[in-house]
């Protein structure tokens, strides 16, 4: 199917590579030999109409009237804009120097109060770089490396300020188990057991804080509306002093924020599941290199996996990772998405398109691989009403290719975000 598409794409790509200066309120029509909607059936010779940043029509191009003045883009294959379910891009910069590295604060092992939106740089070159391959939404934030390193945000890969592109603020808080968040010498945590002792102690503190604040709120609540943001409240004279750290954890206990736990070793995955069970919370297992040895346990716990990049290095705590882990998760019905992840060195930002392609060569079908970087992460992140598939009413986020999107030699020839057209990968 794709073979014939590739043949016809050379002529098409000429038209698509024209400069993109459209605004979000433009009318954009994307014509494609193949539209992979992900949520529904693929459409051959299809068209997508985008207005005011939303998809307003999808169907066969033969039954399609192109509005006058519309910006027309053509491609061989169009898929939903890609979603990176776990990255640090925008906090971790291209130069990898102190100046552009804000992904990890090492002054204390427990800092859930650190907000990603205060650290995210939407102008970071690597944000535009991954967008050029089709990535339109990222779940980015604090890196692995401290017991609790901070929070995350969900944002589009466009915009001049974080406010402009933000989808979800404070989506998750990030915890790391195992060696990479352990300290040497007399600092804590120095062992796995100490890590859990510290985490559990903090959670019980948060439970007590919640009890105290709930009680206090109840006493004075009659006049206040329930859905009002806590920031807006006028503290009463006898109010309990706000504790940003515990407040954040209360949101985790209440299911308002997710707890993302980076755990690669099987024993650390088991510990993460034990922790989730103790506090009655659902967790996102992050990286999870040895998930391939823990499939029954992860399934039983109904945990979600934000799987390490397929091309992550097989060394250190990830020595036992496998190209087939994605396929194993898929076959066992475990919710998962493939991530770009955090790289301390090179490649400084991994592209989820490339990572999913490797999974497709090792057990996932092509459709499953594409779903693992579109609709699956959208569902996990709770934003599937807006992004993740090509459906009427959803954000006009599209990735355009000149052939099979997963093939090494296929090029991304354009990207649409919120109905605005951006360049695909560099071609000069």
């Amino acid at each position, binding site marked *: 199917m794709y073979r014939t598409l590739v043949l016809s794409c050379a002529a098409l790509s000429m038209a698509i590579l024209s400069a993109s200066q459209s605004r979000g309120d433009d009318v954009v029509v994307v014509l494609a030999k193949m539209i992979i909607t992900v949520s529904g059936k693929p459409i051959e010779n299809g068209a997508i109409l985008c207005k005011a940043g939303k998809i307003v029509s999808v169907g066969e191009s033969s039954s399609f009237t192109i509005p006058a003045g519309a910006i027309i883009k053509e491609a061989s294959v169009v898929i939903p804009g890609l979603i990176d379910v776990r990255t640090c891009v925008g906090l971790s*910069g*291209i*130069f*990898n*120097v102190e100046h552009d590295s804000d*992904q*990890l604060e090492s002054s204390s092992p427990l800092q859930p109060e650190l907000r990603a939106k205060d650290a995210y740089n939407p102008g970071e*070159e*690597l944000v535009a*770089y*991954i967008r050029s391959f089709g990535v339109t939404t990222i779940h980015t934030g604090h*890196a*692995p*490396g*401290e017991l609790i390193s901070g929070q995350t945000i969900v944002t589009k890969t466009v915009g001049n300020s974080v406010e402009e592109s933000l989808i979800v603020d404070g989506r998750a808080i990030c915890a790391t188990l195992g060696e*990479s*968040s*352990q*300290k*040497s010498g007399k600092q804590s945590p120095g062992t796995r057991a100490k890590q859990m002792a510290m985490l559990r102690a903090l959670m019980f503190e948060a439970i007590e804080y919640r009890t105290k604040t709930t009680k206090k709120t109840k006493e004075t609540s009659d006049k206040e509306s329930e859905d009002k943001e806590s920031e807006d409240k006028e503290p009463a004279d006898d109010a309990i002093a706000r504790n940003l750290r515990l407040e954040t954890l209360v949101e985790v206990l209440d299911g308002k924020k997710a707890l993302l736990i980076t755990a690669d070793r099987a024993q650390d995955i088991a510990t993460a599941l034990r922790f989730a069970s103790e506090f009655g919370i659902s967790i996102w297992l992050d990286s999870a290199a*040895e998930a*391939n*040895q823990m499939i029954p346990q992860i399934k039983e716990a109904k945990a979600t996996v934000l799987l390490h990049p397929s*091309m992550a*290095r*097989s*060394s*250190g705590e990830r*020595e*036992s*990772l*496998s*190209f*087939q*882990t994605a396929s194993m998760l898929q076959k066992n019905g475990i919710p998962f998405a493939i991530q770009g992840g*955090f*790289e*301390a*060195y*090179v*490649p*400084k*930002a*991994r*592209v989820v398109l*490339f990572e999913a*392609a*490797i999974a*497709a*060569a*090792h057990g996932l079908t092509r459709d499953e691989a594409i779903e693992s970087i579109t609709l699956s992460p959208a569902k996990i992140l709770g934003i599937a009403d807006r992004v993740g598939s090509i459906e009427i009413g959803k954000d006009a986020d599209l990735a355009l290719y000149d052939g099979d999107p*997963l*093939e*090494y*030699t*296929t*090029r991304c020839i354009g990207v649409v975000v919120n109905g605005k057209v951006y360049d695909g*990968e*560099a071609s*000069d």
Partner: protein
Amino acid sequence: MYPANRRTFLSRSARIAIGIGLVDRGSLSTAEAYEAEETIAWKNAKIVTANSPTIEAGSLVIRGASIVDVGPVDKVVVPPNARVVDAAGKWIMPGLVCTHSHVGGVGAADGSGPIQPGVRILDSINVREPGFRRALAGGLTTLNIMPGSGHLISGQTVYCKLRYAGKGPSTIEEILIRDNDGKPIGGLKMANGTNSQGESPFPGTRGKSAFLVREQYIKAREYNAKVTAAKDTTDKMPPRDLHLETLVEAMQGKRIVHHHTHRHDDIVTVIRLAQEFGLRVVLHHVSEGWKVAKEIADSKFPCSIIVLDSPGGKLEAKDMTFKNGRVLDEAGVRVGFHTDDWITDSRLFARSAALAVRAGMNRDKALQGLTLAGAEMLGLEDRIGSLAPGKDADFALLSGDPLSVYTRVLETWVEGKKAFDLANPNDQLYAEGGAGAGSELNPFLCCFAQPWQLGETN
């Protein structure tokens, strides 16, 4: 692609290498692996020879450790005693040659100083490290195993053949590629730019880096003058200096210099110093090579480039781009690729060439960049790197186009022996990963501030 005066050396050494390959096999303890001079013919495969046009329906015939014939099915006469394998629908290409690898848990020079040419990496290689098996799973058959880039001169590299058929080697000696005197062949690793800078005694600037290198080669030149003047008269010979004699080998073109370099001005500095001392250089990584493609082409030095999924990670790699291979090739530079394993995974080596093609590089040149170009950069092109009669029977059998993500390496053959077979569960482990396929340790890449540790607390 090399200056004419160096070609002479090249051909001679390569002839020696061929002769030695045979001697080698007889003298090895794995002699039983080679006793059966079986003739095997693969028929109906699509064959990438790397030195002639790709054959749509071809035959490859090997006997023992060497290739007997290769060509279109109707032109190749298959000997009657041959075991014939139908390879219809499959592809065959020369065993991949990686000019820059760190597999084997290796390390050479230590933190005591920036210039340590006498240190040999072959004294540090663990042949049981899973990286070798993973490299075979990627179709690789020859590796240049290198020390890291944290020194101006970090030691001697070594060229290895992945002779892992059967139970695999017990010692490094079994996988070395040797010269006529039985001496292991290898190059010399050098670096410039920021990796090799540091606290004293390491240089703090680019100017100091170049100075320290020049000073050392001038010393080596003087040392060699004394050795030559002594004319083997023992009492006149200077005390043997392992560092300086290695540099003399480099100046005589007997030891190829594999030079790490990223930024455009650093690349030009390498060319300048190489020309001053008559070094035969392969430029490695060359992130900004595309900015000085003409200068590189004029030098006639080849480039072994790295392809990474995104630019950056350090300042001097911020302008790295997929188009590097195309621009260099079109400027007339000989281009090869490398894995820098563990920086990239040997199992995905062909992907580097595919990404260069994605950015417009000529397909055949990109395939040569995985094979013949690499062989040339090691001075071994008369023995490996392409499929031709008389060459080593090193090749990969593939399920399809080497530049497709969906293609799998089915078998890897080294000197006529099947060293990797995807159908074998033990080998499949290394191809797919899982417990036992990886390594708990990262390679020892002394001595620059290892950026991948910046995100870690200890």
